[in-house]
């Protein structure tokens, strides 16, 4: 049987979650591999969430927010964008292929685009195979504070690299 990856999606309430609902209303079929978690704004997506998802067994993480300039909260998604750059470095530091994390913009009217994104990412992850974690990361899965400390340290360190 073919490997079916599980993707954890963080969708902002105003644009992307609405876009995903629209895919439903319009009956735009797509792969059943995404498990969505609603957040108010993509700006809420803490790097810790992403790492937590991998630690708990996700094969990929998809963060969706409003298009730059359209964020319901004025600029939350610009902050997400900056944070996601750091996140790329962060997951690599933990030995996770960067292609397993994606940040995409999906507006409230882009049901079709949302569906295609899920399909695309599912196919890509099928090729990458199951995500295997280093034991140290896996061990952090149930240690909430340890995980966020590790992430904060890593973000602070890589933050200096990008801003320098």
């Amino acid at each position, binding site marked *: 049987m073919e490997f079916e990856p599980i993707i954890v999606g963080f969708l902002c309430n105003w644009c992307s979650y609405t876009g995903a609902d629209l895919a439903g209303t319009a009956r735009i079929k797509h792969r059943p591999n995404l498990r969505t978690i609603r957040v*108010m704004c993509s700006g809420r997506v803490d790097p810790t969430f992403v790492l937590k998802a991998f630690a*708990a067994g996700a094969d990929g993480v998809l963060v969706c927010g409003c298009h730059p300039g359209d964020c319901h909260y004025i600029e939350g998604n610009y902050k997400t964008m900056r944070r996601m750059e750091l996140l790329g470095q962060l997951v690599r530091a933990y030995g996770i292929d960067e292609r397993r994390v994606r940040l995409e913009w999906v507006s409230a009217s882009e049901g079709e685009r949302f569906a295609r994104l899920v399909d695309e990412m599912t196919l890509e992850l099928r090729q990458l195979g199951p995500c295997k974690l280093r034991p140290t990361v896996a061990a952090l899965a149930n240690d909430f504070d340890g995980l966020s400390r590790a992430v904060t340290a890593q973000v602070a360190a890589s933050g200096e690299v990008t801003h320098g």
Partner: protein
Amino acid sequence: MKDDCRIGFYICNCGTNIAKVVDAEQVCERIAGLPGVACARAYKYMCSNPGQEMITRDIRERGLNRVVVAACSPRMHEPTFRKALEAAGLNPYLLEMANIREQCSWVHDDPRAATAKACDLAHAAVRRVRYHQPLEKVEASYAPATLVLGGGIAGLTVAVELAEASQPVYLVEREGKLGGNVGRADLTAPYLDSARDILAEKIARAEASPKLDILLRSELVELRGFVGNFRATVRTTGGPTRDLAVGAVVVCTGYQEFDATRIERLGYGRFPDVITSFELERRLRMGRLETDDGRIPRYVSIVHCVGSRNPRYHPYCSRVCCMTALKYGHEIKSALPAAMVTDLYVDMLSFGKGGEDFYRRTSELKTMFLMYEKGDPPRVRAAEPGDDCGLLVQVNERLSGEVIDVPADLVVLMVGMEARADGGDVARTVGISQDRQGWFIESHPKLAPVSTATEGVYIAGCCQSPKDIPDSVAQARAAAAMVLAHVAQGKIEVDARFAEIDPDRCSGCRMCNELCPYTAITFDPDERRSSVQSALCKACGTCVAACPSGAITARHFTDKQIFEQIEGVLAWSSSRSS
């Protein structure tokens, strides 16, 4: 972990909408085995009265203190189920929903995979709800004034309704006069009353109302704040820039007409006797039904669906042009009984009250109807010197299958409606969204047709989609009623989700201060601590994710709640779980 949780789990079949793909019984069985779940039931329609009563009864009789409903999108029925909790005296925030319709049964075909996904989403909801806390709704005041953007028939109607109910209104119109597109029309279909009369009455009432402030040549440049408490910056050309306190905003910016030069074969811009519907309206209003060089036309050809119902331009129907074309047939025949009128149409859409009757009456006036294929508009060329007409319109007639040359002295193009070119700017300014065609999106097409994703911002008229005057006015009055309902209460319940800073954990680094898009965070230099002003905070969570000390909590979106959800969606399905 909450050991004292008694969770009620309810899964909705939604008729067959959910149950035909998701095995609801199986989801129920698996969820019933989770810690803390006191009862798990499947029901045909959870949102119906018996469905809600089931929840209320179980809370009372079984002592439930948490509820999970797996059904449609929370954007649809979260308020409904929250009320069911409240009815049983349980805090409404102790509810969590799993979206297994829009984001599951409607988009997946494979029952096995869809059921597995529904189980995961329900599992996550159950894990999350254990960490929900009772929250109190927060009350904020609701400013009585309303800002109406656009002074067409829709905006005028909203403004007059509100002002005559003694509420202050600012009517902001970009142009130098009120009336919008209706001001460009002559008679209106189907009852042939004069557009001018319809408008004059409304404008007179608007101008007579002491509560109504008409701001012409004005634009909305910025909108800050939130429902009940907006601050609108309005700039008037050659006048002052005002900062207005308003409780609600109603967007009525209407439409613009399709640019007919885009369909080259119609000859618009090349032949002066090819004119648009608006240009014909103008001639009718002036009582000069003639060709460019002042002759009486003997042949008039009317082309339907110009820019509409054509995948290359706009896929939708503009809804008023068929009726308007019939109206032209009628007006032309009454003015020039000898003229021959030909209607080149795709389908004749004369729906609505009085529509079919109008079609029957006008078609009895010996108008000739020829049908062309969608996406294959007729081709206009100059007539030969010997012909007794100025132009020839070549049409691939669908019913006869023949290519027909229709003589014409005047060709009228029924240009469709399209979203205004600057609609995107308006949408961004007021925080609403547009569909693919640029029309503003309502909260729900059937249940909340004039509300938007931004609370306190409403839409009415053609800015939402093409419609005729009766429908525009109906929406306008609906929007006015929505506003009045809130104004009457004078206050609004604001969602209890906002950020909170724990002063004991805050290190005073001030990182969050400038991050907040709403400047809701203030810094106390003496205490060296930051704090959130809950009335300003919109709960985006940006500061929460950024605080290096983990001092900020997003109420109802706490780290713990989201962590539980992450574990919940993965517990059964992940490749490492078994």
